[in-house]
């Protein structure tokens, strides 16, 4: 085999969806032992390209060569057989199977036709141990958090990839520690001469791990460059097609006394979160930081009445309020943009318009429909403000790219004009351009007097807009940082404090360098 020959070569890939040309004659080349980053805005066609490569979609044109031989995977099973392992953007595992079954499905060890469950569980455990995950693999997958599922999906794909590993936004729900661990795995695979396609909106990660970068825009190939040859500014310009204005500047922490809007006293839930005290002022942004599984999402869900609190009470503008269900919370001017958009956020078959107005309409009651003109106006406003693409509000939301779906959910809550908005990982899967937009939006919202509680694993982002940061660990609020204390370093220290693990593991590769 010729060593210079590319491992995977795709030429002139076309993919047309009704009304959208998702890929327009895209060329892509992956060498063995290379980490190839695939970049582009939301909806640029990244996920579509890899789905065409793995046979999840039938491409409308173009050729794919693996090791110089034409391949045409009919389905993902075919691709797996060819040694292509993939992690798709939305975690695509089965919650109703055990972790081990998810890991080994289709290749379970068997003896006389019978699956050897013990052996399967042991193998899975061994594999996951390499990722620092020590969990009960005989439990159903759905009992674990998105982040853990993400790691399992990665482990599975790595295990399947004899030649090529494709990772579509694998780091979107991981925190710094897991990201480093993943990169460790990727480096090992590189040495084994496996080609890796890596999609991410985190440019720092891209610069850290990738050798080559390919940029897509509007379904077209813009350029392929080696990573060392490009600066992040140029890269962003290449992705967006225009220059991104001023990077979001760090907020000067004002120290203004704010009147308290909501106050939670001794609020908690027996299994999910230790009782805590939390007061949020009008126009204040409170950030929640913590590691995976630390209980941030649980806190948010308790606040919003998804899992009603079983201790403590809450006041809103000094009046006692009932938070026993999402409806009750919404009635009190709350809003909640959940973390897992696939299961908790989007209503897949409804149009973008309907998804945007859903919460507002539910609030008004069914008998009081929002006039169509008003609906259109709201949609137009948010599609523009959040740069949702495509701009056709009548498209079912499931046809949108992941990042754009996230924006629609955000729009849903902004449309209700809540006084207190909880955002759980609001920027997950959102591209640099929109990222900046959203951070600006958050700032504007709180200037307009909306109070925000933001959960995010991106510490620099939290640092950028939070007035106050609560650090959560082991389902307990352990620290609070105010004003000038808010720096990534302090957060990391708070998280790691009196954890007697070697500190190196928790080192963060933070800000864009």
């Amino acid at each position, binding site marked *: 085999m010729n060593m210079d020959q590319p491992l995977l070569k795709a030429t002139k890939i076309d993919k047309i969806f009704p009304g959208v040309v998702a890929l327009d004659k895209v060329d892509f080349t992956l060498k063995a032992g290379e980490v190839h980053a695939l970049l582009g805005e939301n909806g640029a066609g990244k996920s579509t390209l890899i789905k065409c490569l793995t046979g999840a979609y039938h491409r409308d044109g173009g050729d794919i060569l693996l090791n110089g031989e034409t391949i045409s995977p009919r389905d993902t099973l075919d691709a797996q057989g060819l040694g292509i392992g993939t992690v798709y953007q939305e975690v695509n595992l089965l919650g109703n199977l055990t972790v081990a079954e998810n890991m080994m499905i289709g290749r379970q060890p068997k003896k006389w036709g019978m699956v050897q469950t013990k052996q399967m569980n042991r193998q899975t455990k061994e594999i996951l141990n390499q990722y620092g995950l020590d969990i009960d693999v005989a439990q159903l997958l759905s009992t674990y958090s998105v982040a853990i599922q993400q790691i399992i999906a990665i482990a599975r794909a790595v295990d399947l990839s004899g030649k090529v590993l494709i990772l579509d936004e694998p780091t979107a729900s991981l925190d710094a520690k897991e990201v480093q661990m993943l990169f460790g795995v990727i480096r090992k695979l590189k040495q084994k001469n496996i080609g890796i396609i890596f999609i991410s909106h985190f440019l720092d990660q891209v610069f850290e791990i990738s050798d080559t970068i390919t940029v897509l825009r509007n379904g077209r190939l813009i350029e392929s460059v080696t990573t060392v040859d490009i600066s992040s500014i140029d890269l962003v310009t290449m992705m967006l097609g225009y220059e991104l204005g001023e990077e979001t500047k760090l907020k000067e922490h004002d120290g203004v006394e704010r009147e308290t809007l909501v106050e939670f006293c001794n609020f908690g839930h027996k299994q999910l979160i230790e009782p805590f005290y939390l007061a949020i002022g009008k126009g204040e942004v409170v950030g929640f930081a913590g590691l995976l599984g630390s209980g941030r999402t649980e806190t948010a869900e308790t606040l919003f009445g998804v899992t009603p609190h079983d201790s403590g009470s809450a006041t809103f503008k000094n009046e006692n309020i009932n938070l026993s269900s999402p409806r009750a919370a919404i009635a009190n001017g709350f809003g909640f943009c959940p973390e897992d958009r696939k299961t908790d956020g989007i*209503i*897949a078959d*409804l149009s973008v318009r309907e998804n945007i107005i859903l919460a507002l309409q539910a609030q008004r009651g*069914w008998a009081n429909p929002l006039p169509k003109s008003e609906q259109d106006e709201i949609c137009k406003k948010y599609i523009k403000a959040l740069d949702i693409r495509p701009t056709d509000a009548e498209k079912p939301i499931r046809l949108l790219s992941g990042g754009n779906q996230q924006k629609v959910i955000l729009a849903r809550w902004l449309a209700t004009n809540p006084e207190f908005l909880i955002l759980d990982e609001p920027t997950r899967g959102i591209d640099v351009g929109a990222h900046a937009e959203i951070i600006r939006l958050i700032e504007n919202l709180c200037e307009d007097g909306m109070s925000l509680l933001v959960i995010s694993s991106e510490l620099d982002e939290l640092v950028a807009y939070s007035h106050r940061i609560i650090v959560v660990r082991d389902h307990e609020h352990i620290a609070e940082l105010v004003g000038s204390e808010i720096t990534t370093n302090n957060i990391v220290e708070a998280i790691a404090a009196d954890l007697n693990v070697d500190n190196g593991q928790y080192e963060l590769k933070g800000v864009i360098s």
Partner: protein
Amino acid sequence: MNSLKRYAPQLTTLAIVLLLNYLVFPDFFKIEIANGKLYGTLIDVLNRGAPVALLCVGMTLVIATKGIDLSVGAVMAICGAVAASTVDSGGGVFMALSLALLAGLICGVWNGLLVSVLNIQPIIATLILMVAGRGIAQLITEGAILTFNDEGLIFVGSGSIFSIPMPILIWIAVGIIVTFIVRRTALGMLIESIGINQRASTFSGVNARVLLILVYMVSGLCAALAGTIAAADIRGADANNAGLWLELDAILAVVVGGTSLLGGRFTLIGSLIGAMIIQSINTGILLSGFPPEFNLIIKAAIIVIILVIQSPALQSKYIEYRDRREAEKPPADKENAS
């Protein structure tokens, strides 16, 4: 125009089935006025299709929420029995109608509570009433056919206004009213959102519990109307047979009408067309003069054909094919131009 396009598969199917009927029975489209009433096979289709059409209306909403209502046939029997026994014991037609509707409403609330509050899977929740309901109906009539002679109630089944038989008027009116309510308010969208993703809908503040009860109530009401019509039609409440297996016809009609059993997007008009397709098949079989042993095979064959025509897989293949042809055209034009 747009909506015509939307119902194209259903309308095509209906046309094909009607054409088949015409082939086996050339007088199929003949309509005249006899006894001050429209009279003809086509009218029979509309008239006999009334119970299924009515059931369809409620069933569509239930299916849109990812549910299913197997109890409608039994509810029909209950409500027919209630109406009959009301007039039998001296109540007037209005009394009979209101009590029947009330009975239907109660049945619907019961189903709704089981599904939404007790969280029992719809198919089983409604299976309970499907089994017990017929018993309740028989309890009311004591197993016999409860006949009556109340002109008012009979009018509901076989009377006519402006020469149009009452059942036709009723189902069309119910269809229009429910469509109007559902589409002119936000009800339709909220129901769909529950059916597609109940969890996300609740997160957005949709009151899934109340809406679920509501759709089962509508289904109960529709079944009550259907049951009353069925009883009025034969001037007697036949607790044993009224609405027997009609739930399957109704579900079939909903699916043929283009609403997915997986919940979500629904179309009432499609379902009503579906009901007429099913009834046309039934009537056509009766007209054809084949021996009855073949009824089921004919029905099965036609359903398979319909479903193949409407198959989403084949449709998307067709669309792909059409798009590709269209996509290929412009370059050809360009070549011509250059």
